[in-house]
Structure formats: structure tokens, C-alpha cells
């Protein structure tokens, strides 16, 4: 499997570390809503089909990516830097 890193280009999957589902959002650190935290930490949609997920290019540029990949075929539909996607502030700066 090849993941096209937006910085490094397509690289073998062995250069990346899987960091799981990217549809979850971490509650605010100040939140003490145990249910929300539990849901974030333990629950996953785990779909058969397109899956938004984090991968770190740990054997490369070390950036985290958001990859949309089909879990039935391993086909990759979309890749973006996680930080840029998540951080509007960063983009504007």
C-alpha cells in the first residue's frame, strides 16, 4: 500500500504509523464529561467502506495526515495534512 504524503510524495505504508479513526474529536481538555471522554477514547464507527483516519509519516516528514481510505479495498481517495485541515488559525497566520 502506498500513501501519497502531501509533502514527500507516495511512500510505502511501512514508513507510516497508523493513528486510527479521524472522525473523533477530542473533548475540550477542561471537559469533565466522562461519557463524552469515554466515547472519544473507546468508541469507533469502524466502517466497511471509506474511512477517515490519521496516519503519521513517522519514517518521513513526521507530519500527521488525514487519509480517506476504503477499508474493503485499501484504495486511498484523499490525503491532507492533519494540522492544516484542523487548524484554520494556522492557515490564516
Amino acid at each position, binding site marked *: 500500500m*502506498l500513501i501519497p504524503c502531501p509533502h514527500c510524495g507516495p511512500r510505502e505504508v511501512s514508513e507510516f504509523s497508523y493513528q486510527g479513526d479521524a472522525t473523533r474529536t477530542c473533548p475540550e481538555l477542561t471537559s*469533565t*464529561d466522562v461519557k463524552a471522554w469515554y466515547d472519544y477514547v473507546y468508541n469507533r464507527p469502524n466502517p466497511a467502506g471509506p474511512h477517515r483516519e490519521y496516519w503519521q509519516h513517522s519514517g518521513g516528514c513526521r507530519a500527521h495526515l488525514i487519509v480517506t481510505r476504503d477499508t474493503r479495498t485499501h484504495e486511498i481517495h484523499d490525503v491532507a495534512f492533519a494540522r492544516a485541515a484542523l487548524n484554520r488559525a494556522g492557515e490564516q497566520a
Partner: protein
Amino acid sequence: MTARRTSSGGLIERSRTIGFTFDGRSYTGHSGDTLASALVANGVTLVGRSFKYHRPRGIFTASVDEPNALVTILKDGVREPNIPATQIELFEGLEAESQNRFPSLEFDLGALNQLAGRLFSAGFYYKTFMGPVIGPLRGTRFWMICEHFIRRAAGLGRAGYKPDPARYERMNAFCDVLIVGAGPAGLMAAEAAMSSGKRVILAEQEPHLGGSARWSGEMIGGKAAADWSQDLARRIDASENVRILTRTTAWGYYDGNNIAALERVTDHLADAPKGAPRHRNWAIRADTVVLATGAFERPIVFPGNDRPGVMLAGATERYAREFGVLPGEKIALFTNNDSAYRAAAALRQFGATIMAIIDVRAKISPAARALAEEAGVEPLLGFAVTATVGRRLTKVLVRRFDAETERLSGDARPIEADCLAVSGGWSPAIHLASQAGRNPKWDEELCAFLPPEPTQAWAGAGAFTGAVTTAEALSTGRNAGLKAAGKKLSRAKLPEVTAPNLDIHPASVFEIKGNGKAFVDFQHDVTVEDVRLAHREGFVSVEHLKRYTTLGMATDQGKTSNVPGLAIMADARGLPIRDVGTTRFRPPFSPVSIGALAAEKYGHFKPDRLTPMHDWHVEHGARMMNVGLWHRPMIYGQPGETVEQAYTREAATVRRSVGIVDVSTLGKIAVKGPDAAVFLDRVYTNQFSTLPINKARYGLMLRKDGIALDDGTTWRLGEHDFLMTTTTANAGRVMQHLEYVLDVVWPDLKVHLTSVTDQWAGAALAGPNARKVLETCVAGSAVDNEALPFMGLVYGEIDRAPVLVCRLSFSGELAYEVYCGAGHGKHVWEALITAGEPHGIAPYGMEALGALRIEKGHVTGAEIDGRTTARDLYLDWMLSKKKPFIGSALMDRPGLIEKTRLRLVGVISLDGRPLGGGAHIVESGDLNELGESIGHITAFCYSPALAQYIGLALVKGGKELHGKRAYISDPLRKHFGPVQIVSHHFFDPEGKRMHG
């Protein structure tokens, strides 16, 4: 010249004779021979024994699909079992051995199994060997006795225990077009793609390019096909942008158009050149792949079809034309299609007598008829072979056969023959295309499975696509090559092909039903009866059929047997083959050496990670140990010392005077940026934003689920500049954790993280005399209590090397960590040793480090084991109440604060014996019965300070048990003994020494 070698022809080099042995007997062959062709040339027809019944078997094919002729190669002092003789190129001195026979190939006791053939029907072992329900053989015992013998009878070749001395390698390659298979289709594809200037790789499993053109006897472009292919191969080879890989099998088609291909670099050589790997595993990333892998011929199933002397028709033709050998003198052919007729003509041309062509069809094409005439026989149309005779084939029996009704009639007629060439049609080699799991499509006309719709960027060409003629191979090959290279299709004339105009449609006949064992899977001895039995017992899905009978599970993965097997099942179920389907294709296409996949990691499983002081440690007698990938000193043993004596001495020296330990392996992370302090407040349980510059704090991190993750000290070097340390074991994990939360959870924070583990060498100097040592060697800064208080930091120089001296203590002594650039590590270390000499400084290793920390009750990975919380470890004082942090939300869930949790305590051995890591703790001292475990020892040592064996433990109740007596229970090492449970702060609990 042997009897079977033709007088001329073939692509072998007749002038070069090569000696080899088979089962200890010497033979000769020629350069260009395979072991199989050389054995045929020497008249050796019995080559192996089958798996279950030990039936005598001969050579059946001329390629990777060989099910029978598996041998063991003896090379480089090791055994290499199960290699098809058809795949072994002859080299001088080649030693091969037959297998699965005892005492000899000719006379094999295992053949007695045949007598009980019916008993050993498919799945027989599921029905018996269960043994009695009572008595000494109940349970699994009886079965295990039987199993012992079954295992010895099964298996094919014998492997050895000697390490393989060979070397292996991986190679990464990138190209625009990868072409797999260099037959007419692959060669045309390569030529077409090459002209585009794109990067092209052409991989062919055989030693030569040309594929079937080497033995088709056809004319291409006005030349003999073999010459045409050689000329074209030469032209392709001369092209800059094409890499040709021969002896290279594409074996796996992985995601991202990644093709794995095995190159056998030196197998065909008597001696490997220096530095050359035996095998090289290519990982080829291609924009487009052209699959031109051709087709496999398959047999017709009939009684007695496994007798030595029965061979695929295409193989007989190949032996004659490519290798100049005849598999028999009196050859009969049996077919359901036209292709065998070309073989007949060829065999005749090379000097064999064609005894008969037996064809199940009532009618044949004019071209076939013409070839029959060339072969000198009148074909027996509407006939079938119903039996074979002879230990080695002497005769076949034939009867009238109606291809429509599949009925036999009339009397059996004997035909003399020492070789029967069989063709049951052709199956495209769709393996690579099917590995992704899509279903191949059955084509009624061609009687074959065609490749599925592509799941990746590949195009097919030639016989692989079901295109049967060479002209089609040329055109589909060129088209695929052009398309793959992104070029327009060409109207230029293709090379002209002169070939008999054969009818490509076989009759849909897969099996001749008759009396006697008819084999479907030769290697696994799966018979037609087995298939029908599977059907009767309800194992009707093709996947059940496979698993119940082992059809297609042998080393050839059913290349010759799958389609006939499915056809027989379809017949039994009364369904068309289309509805029965085929079993799933998986990598590898053909077996791949395990060494090649390990590649350069074979012999170097993981790289060694060394600290800057490594050589010093080794030179000074350190016994090294593995800590992850690192090598660290365990002890610096003196002559005659035990490990315990050594570390006790080292630790005692620390407590008494001063010691030094290499801590370069600690994870170090530079945390920089305006939000660095905020960031640390969030990831640590305690506060870092309040830490003054040039001071350090001990920190604890939790996982999101509230469990302890790692601990370490972090230094504030500047307002926005921190140096974090982690445990050696968790360095990578912590770095990833921090990068993750920074990129994904708080992408707005301005913080940069850089691993600086390798930038800094570190030495911890500990003991009451530590300061004195520093005073004599540190320049540029004072190191007294005022300049350098506990958890303080100064910059200075040691012997002209810049250093950072931090005061902190893991040992509980007055202690410092001295950090310097890694390139100065050994220099500074040596300077410190020199400065410490007057105080009798002792370098100490992991064991002493462990002893010192146990005495202090400091936790490490044995206690922070992924299951413990901060409270379990009595580190709740580090959980800030002023701010949230990662893990704070979930750390108080009911299960994490239960009374029954295992919590940290100290234990002292009361019988003067060592405690033992991994020992459990029980409350009862009754030695007759193992009591209930209430916890376990995580670490132990002999404590020089306490002059006792002590340990840390996690026990139910923790602190509440302080002062209680309990027992060590270590049944694995048969060790039991009384202990006292105490506080884990054994030594200097107030910390006077380190603050001193």
C-alpha cells in the same frame, strides 16, 4: 549422447557438458538444461513419490506448474527441499535427491499405503484416531500417538537445522511500466513501451526471454519464433530505458501497484560471486503493469493418469524443441483440443514414433488433421484413454467415447506407448490479477477462467487474456505496451506469424470416468473419488472441497489440478462451472524463499543502537545487555565476580563514595515555541509553566484513559525552550504521543518537537563525593549548593567540552547528570572518570542502577506497565488539581479507584534469599497448596544499603499491608519464602542525601 537426446535441435549448448548427481548417481547434461530435461535425457523417468500413497511419479510438466518431480538440492552445506526439477538449471556439481521415500525411490515402503487406499479417503482422519473415552488413552493421548506417525509419513522433503549461510537482499524499483512475462505478448509489450522512452521493467521467471516462442516451432516475422524472440530480446536489452530481469518471478500483487518479484541471482551458479545475494526480492512500484503471464496447460483426468511416462503435451513439445530431449520413443497423445497435434508433429520431427492421437472429439480442424499427417498417424476421434499399464508406462488402453454424453463404449484397445502426452486445454495464468480477491470469470467457449476486472492499474496481454494465437499475443501485447506507456495505438503492421490454424476451443471434457484411481491433484494424491466423497458429505463449496480433500493446497497450488477438480465437483452438483467458481488466489504465485523476504535483515534482525561511550564500556569489561535496540552495560564485572557481587560492589561504591553511569539512552525531546509551557501543562499531570528557567521538574504523563504512560524530568532552558527526558523504553512512544496531540488535538499551539536523544550524551554521577568530582573538572561554573541546588542546572566545560550539568537524583544520592554533545561523550566520560579516580569512582551498569532505584522506591517500566494508575503507584501527589491534563477526565472511573487494585509496596526477604522477578505474593504460608495470588514482584535486588534482599511489588491493598508478613510464591522456579511488606521507600525516605 544418450538414447533420449535428439541428435540436433534445441536451444541447449551441446558443446558444454555438465556433470550432476541425482540420488548419488552421476549423470551429465548440457548447458541450458534443467534438471528435469537432463533427467529425461538420461532416461530417468521415476523422480519422486507422492504425498499420501507414495505412488511412483515422473516428470509431468516443463515449468513452475510441476506437481510431481520435487527434489531436494544439497548446496552450500544445507538442504533445500521441494524444488521442482523443472525449475533447476543445471550447473557443474549439482547434487539433487529424491524425497518422501524410504528406503529408496525404487522401493518405497510407504507405498504400502496404497493397499489401504479406500481407507485413506478424503477426510478419513476426522472420523477416527479419537481413541477411547476412558482409560489412559482418553483425552487427546491416543490421537497424539497416531499423530506422531502421521506426521512422519506426511511432509515432503526433509529440511535441516543448519543455519542457511546464504545472503539475501531487497531491491526497490520504480517504473512507468512493468511487464510480467516475456513470451511473445510480453516482448511485444516491452518493445512498444520502450519506444516511448518511459521507464520499463520486464520480468521473466525463466532464464531466457521468449516464453512459448522458444518452443512453439512457429515462424514470426519470417524467422523461427525462437530466433525472433532472441533478436527482439537483444533489441530490448540494448535499450537504455528497459531493465530486464530474468529468473525473476513476480509473485505478489500488492496495493498501490506494488509488485513483489523474486530474482534468483545465483541459484544457477556453482559458486556465487562475492557480494552477490542468493535471492533478491524486488519491490516494484509501477504506474502500470502489463500482465503477460501466458497460460498453463491442464491434463484430462482418467484412471491411471499419474503413471510415470504420462506428461502434459505442451511439456513434451517443449522438451523436444527447447531442450532437444524426447520423453519417450513411442509416444501416444490424448487430447480434447488441437494443441496436442502440434506437439505430435514436433515429437515426430525430433525422432519419436507417434503411436496414436486419442481425441475425445468427433471432429477436428483441417489444421489438426494436417499435423496428424505430419506426425504419421490417423487420429482416433471419439476415443478416450481409460487406463494405463506398466510400472513405467508401457501401454494405454482406449475406448470409444462420446464427448456429448461422456459415455464410454466398446472394448478397451491397448496401444503401446512409453509416453502419453495429455492435453486438457489451457488455463490463463490469472494468479496475480486475482490476488486482490475479485472473482475470475468462467468462459464457456474457451473452457477457462479469465482474469477478473482490474482492481489496480494493469492491462493484460496474450494467452493471459484468453487470446490463444500468437498473432493475437503480438497484437494484444503491443496494444497493452502502448497503452501502458501512454501512447496511441499503432496501425503499423505486426510481424507476420506462420502457424497452423488450430481450433482454439477444447471440448468441455475434464474427466474420463472409469475404473481405477484417477488423480486430480497429483502431489496431494487427491482422486476423483475423493472429490465425489466430498460432494456426498456436503463439502460442495469449492473452498470446502479444497479444505476437505487438500486439492490445490500443495506446493504447486493446483496449477494443473484446480480446474479439473472444480469441473468434477460441478458435474457432481449438476451445476455449470461458472456457478461453482474457483478457490481464492493468494500470494505467492510460486513459492518464495523465506530468506529473500527477510532480505538484509536475515542475520541482522534489528540494528544495534550504541551510545557514544559504548567502546569505553566494552574496553572496561562491561557485560552488555539489550534494552530495546540499545546496548547498555549490565555490570562491569571484575575477574571472579558474580553478577550479584559486581552490582552490589558498584551500588555500594555509589552509596559510599561516587559512581558513574551512562544515561545517554534516555529519550530527549526539545520542546520549543511560545506555547511550550502551556503544552507541557496539558501533557504532564503536574505543572510546568511555573518552572523557573534553569530548573527541572519531575513529570508524569498519563494516557487518555487515565493510566500512567511515562515519567521523566524536564528542564526549562529558556522561556520557551524545554528539554524533556523520557524513559529509554518509551522514548519513541512518548514522542509520537506528543506529536499526535500537537498535530491533531491542539493544532493551534505553536510548539516544535525535535528528537534530540542522539544529540546529547549523558552521564549520571552519583554519590556523596559526586560534587567533589565535579569541582575538580567543571570549568566555567560553580557547582556548589548555591550555584547548583537540587533540580538546578548550570552550563560549563569539562576538559574543553561544553557541558550542561543538572542536579537530580535517581539513586537517592547527591547526584548530577552531565550532558554534552554526543561527539564529546566519550571524552567527557573519560574526564569524569579521571576526576573521580581519587575517590575510587565506580562505573556502574543497569543492575546497580536498578538496585539503587529499588532502594529508593522509584518506579520504572516494570511498575508503569500500562495497567497502573498514578494512585496505584502513590504518585497522586503529582496530579495537579489546578488544571486539567491528558487523562484527568477518565482517571477517576470506578474501576480505576477500586480497593482491590494492585498498588506499589516494598518487600523484604525474611529468609535471606533473593526474591525473583515475576514471583507472586500470597498471604498464606502453606506450602502444600498454592494460595491465591495477591500480587507480584516487579523488581528485586540485593540491597547493599540494607544488606538484605528487597524488592518492589504490586499487591492488592498496597499501603494497608505495610508491616504485614506475606510469602513469595514462585512455583515456576520452585521458590517459596516469607517476606515483610513495607513502604517502597526503603532508603533515606526523607531524601536527605540527595538534597545534601
